[in-house]
């Protein structure tokens, strides 16, 4: 019985639980709902939940556990030393799975009878060709061990599927029976249902934690694998980045880090003054009418996808800078450069800084302004000497958050900064960043057992640590130095 069908059956049982639970509750009080502890609907939901949830949990666990159990069973077919090695075992299991699935497909397509599929041997001729005929592509010719393992895999999988269906249905029926047995007028169905709902809510709120754990675990494990293939010290302190898929790659982080920081610096030089002045003007000078028009317009910038900025950098900004600045001054001849990417990221970050700073400036109490005006200060003096100092922690926080965004920005640098890893001071040279290299090492067909691919995870880890550090530092600055006005 397929999983999909099983879930449908569970759904039907849940509906049965819904109807029966309600009916039984009403019957137990002879239709007088005032004698029920809870509203009738809660008894119905209780029936449905008891029929569905435990069975669903069992099914999920089974689906996770079955492949692991089968894999262990199949270890007899292969020499122990092949099975010890992690990457070899993964490849072998993938082969076995492909052959087994291929046989199933062949049976389903009518190319093989079920008996043929069970008795097929390597001696019969090319298994690969016969499976290829029904659209299952195998990488290499099938070895006898793999074929035997695949046959055993099929047997185990079909037994497993049968057992899975039986166990799941038994659990579902047991749950349903339990719900019906326990249902009577005194039973506190509402409390039970609400407890389940609360459990679901708690589970949903832990997704955030799980995501973080997932991010850290996935990057950490691959980074550890990377460090077993490539000396981690050379990665952290290497001055050249030269991956080559023949081996002997030099995978030094420093040039990428330099490119990232240089581009972010240019971006911040553009974004901080522009964003701050925009915020100050909107908060202190602009009439409500101007503010109500300009503020949304500035925020439009933040709503435009970064790939649009990337195309703008590639098609407009890059050639413009090249033809009007880089070539006349003799600094470079490439359209993609630190300047191109930096300027465009800067523009992207203007609304981010301006809206955060705007909120912070508005949070400075009016009494401070009034006091300053009362002493005869002009508006700009008030802003510079009273409001900005009071808002400083918040503004520093906003700038740090913007810096972390500039560092993690991907599309603009992929399209506008270039791909050459260089340690250079010239802002009109093409340079590259951590994010660009993550994209270039991980796109396309990649094998996950070479240092050239795995380095992307180490780069991702570096990026994650840097941006997380900046964010936490920003929050800390804001908390520590925030003035409390009451």
């Amino acid at each position: 019985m397929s999983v999909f069908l099983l879930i449908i059956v569970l759904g039907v049982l849940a509906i049965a639980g819904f109807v029966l639970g309600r009916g039984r509750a009403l019957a137990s009080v002879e239709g007088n709902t005032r004698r029920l502890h809870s509203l009738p609907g809660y008894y119905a939901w209780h029936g449905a939940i008891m029929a569905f949830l435990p069975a669903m949990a069992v099914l999920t666990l089974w689906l996770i556990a079955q492949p692991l159990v089968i894999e262990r069973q199949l270890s007899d077919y292969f020499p122990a030393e092949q099975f010890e090695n992690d990457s070899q075992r993964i490849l072998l299991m993938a082969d076995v799975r492909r052959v087994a699935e291929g046989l199933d497909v062949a049976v389903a397509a009518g190319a093989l009878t079920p008996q043929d599929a069970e008795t097929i041997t390597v001696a019969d001729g090319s298994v690969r060709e016969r499976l290829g005929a029904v659209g299952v592509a195998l990488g290499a010719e099938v070895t006898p061990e793999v074929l035997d393992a695949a046959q055993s895999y099929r047997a185990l999988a079909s037994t497993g599927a049968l057992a899975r269906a039986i166990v799941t249905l038994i659990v579902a029926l047991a749950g349903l029976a339990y719900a019906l047995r326990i249902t009577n007028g005194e039973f506190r169905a509402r409390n039970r249902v609400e407890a389940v709902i609360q459990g679901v809510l708690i589970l949903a709120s832990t997704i955030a934690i799980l995501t973080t754990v997932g991010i850290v675990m996935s990057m950490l494990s691959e980074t550890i694998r990377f460090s077993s293939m490539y000396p981690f010290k050379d990665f952290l302190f290497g001055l050249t980045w030269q991956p080559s898929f023949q081996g002997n790659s030099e995978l030094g982080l420093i040039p990428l880090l330099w490119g990232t920081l240089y581009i972010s610096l240019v971006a911040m030089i553009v974004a901080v003054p522009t964003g701050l002045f925009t915020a100050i003007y909107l908060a202190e000078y602009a009439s409500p009418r101007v503010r109500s028009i300009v503020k949304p317009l500035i925020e439009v910038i933040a709503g435009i996808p970064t790939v649009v900025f990337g195309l703008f950098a590639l098609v407009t900004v890059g050639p413009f800078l090249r033809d009007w600045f880089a070539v006349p001054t003799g600094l470079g001849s490439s359209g993609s450069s630190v300047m191109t990417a930096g300027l465009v990221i800067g523009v992207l970050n203007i609304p981010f800084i301006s809206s955060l700073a705007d909120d912070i400036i508005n949070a400075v109490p009016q009494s401070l302004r009034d006091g300053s005006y009362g002493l005869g200060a002009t508006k700009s003096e008030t802003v510079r000497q009273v409001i900005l100092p009071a808002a400083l922690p918040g503004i520093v926080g906003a700038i740090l958050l913007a810096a972390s965004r500039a560092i993690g920005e991907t599309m603009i640098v992929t399209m506008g900064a270039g791909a050459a890893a260089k340690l250079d001071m010239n802002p009109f040279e093409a340079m590259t960043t951590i994010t660009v290299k993550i994209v270039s090492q991980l796109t396309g067909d990649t094998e996950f057992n070479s240092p050239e691919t795995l380095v992307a995870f180490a780069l991702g880890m570096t990026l994650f640590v840097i941006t997380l550090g900046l964010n936490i530092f920003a929050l800390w600055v804001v908390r520590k130095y925030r003035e409390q006005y009451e």
Partner: protein
Amino acid sequence: MTDATSSQVPAATPAPARSSLLTQSALMKKRNAAEARFKAYGVAAICVSLSVLAIMLWTIFSDGVSAFKQASLTFPVTLDADALDPKGNRDRAEMMRVTTIGYTKLLNAQLLAHLETRGISTEGVTDKDVAAFISRDTPARLRDMVLESPELLGQTITVSGFATGRIDGYLKGRVTRDTAALDTNISVAQLDLADRMQDEGILTTKFNWGFLTNPDASDQRPEAAGLGVALIGSAYMMALVVVMVLPLGVAASIYLEEFAPRNRWTDLIEVNISNLAAVPSIVYGILGLAIFINFAKFPQSSPLVGALVLTLMTLPTIIIATRAAIRAVPPSIRDAALGVGASKMQTVFHHVLPLAAPGILTGTILGLASALGETAPLLLIGMVAFVANYPAGPLDGGVLDPATALPVQVYSWASRSDPAFIERSAGAIIVLLAFLVTMNIIAIILRRRFERRW
């Protein structure tokens, strides 16, 4: 002893300078000038940001609008039965043997013949140059058409197919005589011929629906490339994201806002959510690659994986927006519900949630808009691959078929060498921005209509 008794005459204070409130002192002038400058900086900052925005949108639109129009060649073609069905038995399998090359030859010959009958001189252009007018897409389409309805063989039909990218560019002004002189793919003589064909009505420019419906095409056929697969992929992903992110986000927000006790665990969750909102999007791509593709073995390039990644990415923003909406419901509503005997759960689900719904919906739409434009994580899970086949319908497991997404298509076209793809890329951005503008307008309308001030 006080100063008053001392006979010492205080040093005469210098007579105050004669000043008036109406004339400014030097210091005041300086301060006012500083004030004016400061204000001008603000105006300048706003002007800079808005003009960059305007320039960007203008360049994208002026580059991209032409992607919606396409030059096409219209001429009569006699479908020669001997060439297209050599055995003459109209058997589909037999007819499949004639490849697109056979159809290309036929089309080329017929175009030349048609030019001759219309009296258009092909002076200075070789036959091969004339053949280069026809897109490689046209023979393939004609072949599909003939295989579909073999009774067309022997008849004369009017074929309307794309012209090649360079000719198309000439009609749109992208290719000029100056650039053609430097281009090995096109000659000035061909452009002259294009002018003559345009005068005779063989070469026309029409609105190109194919740009919205066709799948992607290879490097040599920019004229045939379209957004069909990308639109379907994006639609699948957005539908899945809504289905996953809305229940999860609302459930998490309800718990954190209404039920969670203040303890270390909930503090940890809250810090986590705000940090996740600031994690670079590409990190989610790495997560998706490692967990969903390498570990869980979901198919690469599939909308399902894309949707899972985008869900995890937008979840923090949606939780933040939803919590704000729930917090905006005044406590008096909760107190009233609890007062008439509702349980905590009933209070939340019957009273708080419906009142917060418009705010939640607005936040969700804005979160979806940002997910729709997200590119970087999708590159890592393989959605940048060249996909020429439409994914299956949603009920036939289409969410597991390879597909691309709108912003990814923008990127992959932009990185191809032919400038005709830059036009397509900008055109794709116009489509993308049209969706984003629509979503934002819906959000604004929702907010205007249902926002309640308590």
